[in-house]
């Protein structure tokens, strides 16, 4: 297993943001955590990334427990788990050029310098569909789709074993979202990382995920292979989520499913 989360609890004051979550992600797998704001999915992701310490429970990355590690080792462990955030405008340092943004993690992995480092950066950007003309650009000079490619390049430069995708396309236009989703699907094929996809967009989840966990009020209320979850949702909340997906016409608005839990 790339990632094993066991009995994870994270409380903020009296609020149990994550309330006993178990999940695991295998190599090459895409696991989607679906939930709405306040469901705890973001807190879960932050625990997995080691940005916050869980109150109890464990997060194992390739069998190594983040909770018992010394800070120095934890720093190195973190490099095996990377993240792409929702809003690429906020997730890239506005004062750095594309080249510096990608070179920063690249150098940590390869130790290259100068021209060799630059070549590695160019090669990775090329793989993600960005030409060398973009190297000297600053984030504000790029479109949302281009920025998200830079964010991906930055995250993948360390060749992580797990990539957390936190609503990776919800700030993008539909046509750009399609490009990024295709890119994510392509990257999965050649020896890429496993994905932990955090999303509230069920269509995106359906498109990308192998397995899905539905999170509600800090707990995973349902977990199933994607095909089965979308065909036969077992939990009430899952059904309510599926009913809320728009696009089935005016008639779907009339059926009264809008009852609060």
């Amino acid at each position, binding site marked *: 297993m790339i990632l094993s989360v066991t009995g994870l609890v994270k409380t903020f004051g009296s609020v149990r943001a994550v309330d006993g979550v178990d999940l695991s992600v295998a190599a090459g797998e895409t696991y989607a955590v679906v939930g709405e704001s306040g469901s705890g999915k973001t807190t879960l992701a932050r625990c997995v990334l080691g940005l916050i310490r869980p109150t109890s429970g464990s997060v194992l990355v390739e069998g190594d427990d983040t909770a018992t590690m010394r800070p120095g080792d934890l720093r190195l462990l973190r490099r095996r788990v990377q993240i792409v955030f929702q809003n690429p405008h906020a997730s890239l340092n506005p004062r750095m050029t594309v080249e510096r943004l990608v070179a920063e993690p690249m150098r940590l992995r390869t130790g290259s310098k100068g021209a060799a480092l630059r070549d590695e950066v160019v090669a990775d950007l090329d793989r993600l569909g960005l030409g060398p003309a973009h190297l000297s650009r600053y984030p504000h000079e790029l479109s*949302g789709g281009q920025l998200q490619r830079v964010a991906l390049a930055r995250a993948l430069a360390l060749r992580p074993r797990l990539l957390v995708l936190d609503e990776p396309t919800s700030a993008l236009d539909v046509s750009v*979202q*399609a490009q990024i989703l295709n890119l994510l699907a392509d990257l999965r094929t050649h020896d890429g990382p496993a994905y932990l996809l955090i999303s509230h967009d069920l269509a995106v989840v359906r*498109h990308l995920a192998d397995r899905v966990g539905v999170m509600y009020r800090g707990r995973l209320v349902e977990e199933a292979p994607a095909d089965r979850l979308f065909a036969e949702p077992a939990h009430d909340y899952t059904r309510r989520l599926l009913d809320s997906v728009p696009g089935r016409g005016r008639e779907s608005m009339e059926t009264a499913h809008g009852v609060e839990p």
Partner: protein
Amino acid sequence: MSDLLSVEDLEVSIGAVRPVRGVSLRVAPGEIVGVVGETGCGKTLTGLAVLGLLPPGARASGRVVLGGDDVLGGDPRAVRGRKVTMVFQNPGTAFDPVTTIGGQFARVLRAHTGCSRRAARARAAELLTAVELPERVLDNYPHQLSGGMLQRCMIALALSCEPSLVIADEATTALDVTVARQILRLLLRLQREHGFGVMFVTHNLAEARDICDRVYVLYAGRVAEEGMAHAVLDRPRHPYTRALLAALPRLDAPRGRLASIPGSVSHAEVGCSFAERCPDAKDVCRAETPPAHDGVACHFPGGAP
């Protein structure tokens, strides 16, 4: 039936840029009309022009007639609030954080009707009931309410002046799916009860499909395609609409590659704005701006011959 809103050949320019380049649309009384498109297509500026709320530095030409009054030529303050109100994307920032919801309702109601404090509170409670919120919300401050509740409050405020047209600009974009669904249902129900027209500005084709009678698909500041919502979104004729729908991941479609649209938006002065990205583009597409014919601004609607 005469139009509630009629926009003819609206152009908006900001400096040398022309984000809106000749948009014509109309909304009949009691009709829900979608204005859909991606970032930068001009949909938000079109909505603001109808309200007479264009940002400073923006110049508009063309005609915007709302219930018989010319918005662009006349005094927008007379129109705003009385006949047309707007529901914004981010309800969190639309409310004054240090005044209770009740206080904010009282301010608006008393400014509009000059009624007493007590009457204002009674009316505010009534409006909250209409949007399925309890009266106690009046004593809450904005930060105590969820995004969905705030959006309901905003809709209630919009109702307070008995508008004939409500402009909803990405009204559900910041909300969770289940909450967004509830807000759409609420909007639909209120529209039926009060009979106002709705201009539903959104990037979300699926939502437009669910709630709109008719839709206008905007691309690069022009209307690419218009028609009945189900017709346009189920049987698109403009290549842009087709590409957009093909790019959308769907629950009911098999997983596979999504069709993405190559290139980026161009604002070419000559020819069809979509020509550079269009798989079916011919020479004529780059030479002549296609006229709108039968609701489609395309030289080869429905595909190349």
